[in-house]
């Protein structure tokens, strides 16, 4: 596949996001559900960029969302009275990316030298460790967190602050999902995509072929972390206007990201949005009809998916479409 046609698979993904967005605009009563779905899709898309493409499972992933949340919180709470207006939000987004990238460099420099399962084990402690560091060393107010709803109101006014956290924050989450989608296809179709695919299939053979596996893993790791930082800054900081370490470093968000990617299909472009929608919608309705039993229902579902459809929903669809005209749109 050559030229622009290699980017065709991004069309169904971007159309799906557009459709979800328009559905939300047309049904204001369902906007919260739509925003939640967008969050899950964006989370999956960002997580897939590392886990799907490298085959490495980062159990500490939520720490990047957490530290991104702090990036926005610090920006607003410190700069609200400096007369920068919405520039503070931009600074907050940049800061969240910088924080996430720095943390990913520190984690990646150590953990990415480990293989497969050892990497996963090494990362399990990252978010818990980071949470206790913030609480114990009283960094950024420790366990009292940062509440910045007042600063946000004073900065942009009550009305604007309200629409920022109930609407524009969600729009930005859509934006993160789109950026993650675009980056994913650019990576997949570029040399880095082939390098990551090769190391995912056989890391030793990849090295012998001249692939600097550590370098490519770190690039994917940092990119995925930066997107997580943005997601924390928008979906959590701007939406909630406060941050507590106990909330933003919960490992269950990482588990949700893993479920979404596996449901949809790890390493596929379309997988995260499919997984995100399936997961988000079923979680929503399970919370309505079987409150408290969501995880109990999901655990066996995941086992069934992994055993029967190891390539996820999209992997299964891809198989069915081989040789048809639709093949070039699915990745």
């Amino acid at each position, binding site marked *: 596949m*050559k030229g622009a046609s290699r980017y065709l698979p991004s069309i169904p993904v971007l159309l799906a996001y557009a459709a979800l967005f328009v559905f939300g605009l047309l049904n204001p009563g369902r906007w919260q559900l739509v925003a939640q779905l967008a969050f899950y899709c964006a989370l999956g898309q960002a997580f897939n960029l590392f886990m799907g493409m490298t085959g490495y499972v980062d159990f500490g992933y939520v720490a990047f969302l957490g530290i991104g949340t702090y990036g926005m919180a610090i920006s607003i709470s410190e700069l609200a009275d400096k007369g920068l207006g919405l520039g503070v939000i931009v600074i907050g987004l940049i800061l969240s990316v910088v924080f996430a990238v720095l943390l990913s460099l520190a984690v990646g420099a150590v953990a990415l030298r480990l293989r497969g399962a050892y990497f996963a084990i090494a990362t399990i402690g990252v978010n818990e460790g980071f949470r206790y560091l913030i609480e114990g060393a009283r960094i950024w107010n420790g366990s009292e967190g940062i509440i910045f709803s007042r600063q946000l109101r004073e900065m942009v006014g009550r009305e604007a602050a309200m629409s920022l956290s109930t609407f524009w924050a969600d729009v930005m989450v859509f934006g993160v999902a789109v950026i993650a989608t675009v980056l994913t296809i650019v990576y997949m*179709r*570029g*040399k880095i995509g*082939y*390098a990551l*695919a*090769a190391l995912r*299939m*056989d890391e*030793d*053979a*990849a*090295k*012998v*072929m*001249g*692939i*600097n*596996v550590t370098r490519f893993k770190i690039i994917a790791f940092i990119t995925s972390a930066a997107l997580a930082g943005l997601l924390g800054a928008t979906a959590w900081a701007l939406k909630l206007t406060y941050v507590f370490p106990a909330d933003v470093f919960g490992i269950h968000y990482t588990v949700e990201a893993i479920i979404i990617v596996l449901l949809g299909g790890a390493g596929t472009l379309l997988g995260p949005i499919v997984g995100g929608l399936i997961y988000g919608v079923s979680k929503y309705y399970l919370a309505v009809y079987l409150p408290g039993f969501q995880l109990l229902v999901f655990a066996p579902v995941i086992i069934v998916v992994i055993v029967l459809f190891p390539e996820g929903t999209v992997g299964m669809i891809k198989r069915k479409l081989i040789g048809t005209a639709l093949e070039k749109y699915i990745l």
Partner: protein
Amino acid sequence: MSLLRVENVTKRFGGLVAVDNVTMEIAHGEMMAIVGPNGAGKTTLFNLINGVFFADEGKIWFEDVDVTHYPAYKRAHMGIGRTFQISRPFASATVQENIAIGAMFGAAGSETNVDQAMEMADHYIGLIGLSSHRDKLAGGLTPIEKKMMEIARALAMKPRLLLMDEAMAGMNPKDIDKMVDFIKRIRSEEGIAIVALVEHIMRAVAGLAERVLVMHQGAKLVDEPTKIALSDPRVIEVYLGVPPGEADA
């Protein structure tokens, strides 16, 4: 100037001395075979040459650069290509993608973009006669096709030295002869030095190599032109057990 120089290299795994003080040289464009019974240390020597393992003692020079501590990917960039004893295709990538990965990241990798790599891959797919399998997943190939694909993948790296680990194991005499012709052809067409590891297929060694290095229990036993090496009484005694004329495949 030799292409590759291995100087007094030793590799131990715990108490086992897998490669014991081996010294060898390969000239540009030379065709050499390393033979020895199972466990003689041939594959370990390969792994030391291309950086899968690092030597405990001794030095390795490639084109007069000390590469002893270079990681495998750097040695690949410098022009050391490799095929494996048990094929290691990127199973869920297509044949074309497998070979293109060699072109993208090998010695010419920094100047090769994805489209160029795919074109180069097509060239090498033609060379190995697998054009009809271009878009097949590599995992679905037959063992011999996988071996051929690995050779194409290594050639696409544009190596100056190609290490071939048991390229002919498990083949029948007819396929071995075909493979020998193919290896000779790529050597003259691509102008590269080739070192082939062979456990026991003397038909291949005699037809292929100008020089033979015989390994025994990790150490170098003989390093001579093929005819002399294969008739050396020490080789016959410790390795072949029977005269080379009767040891075909």
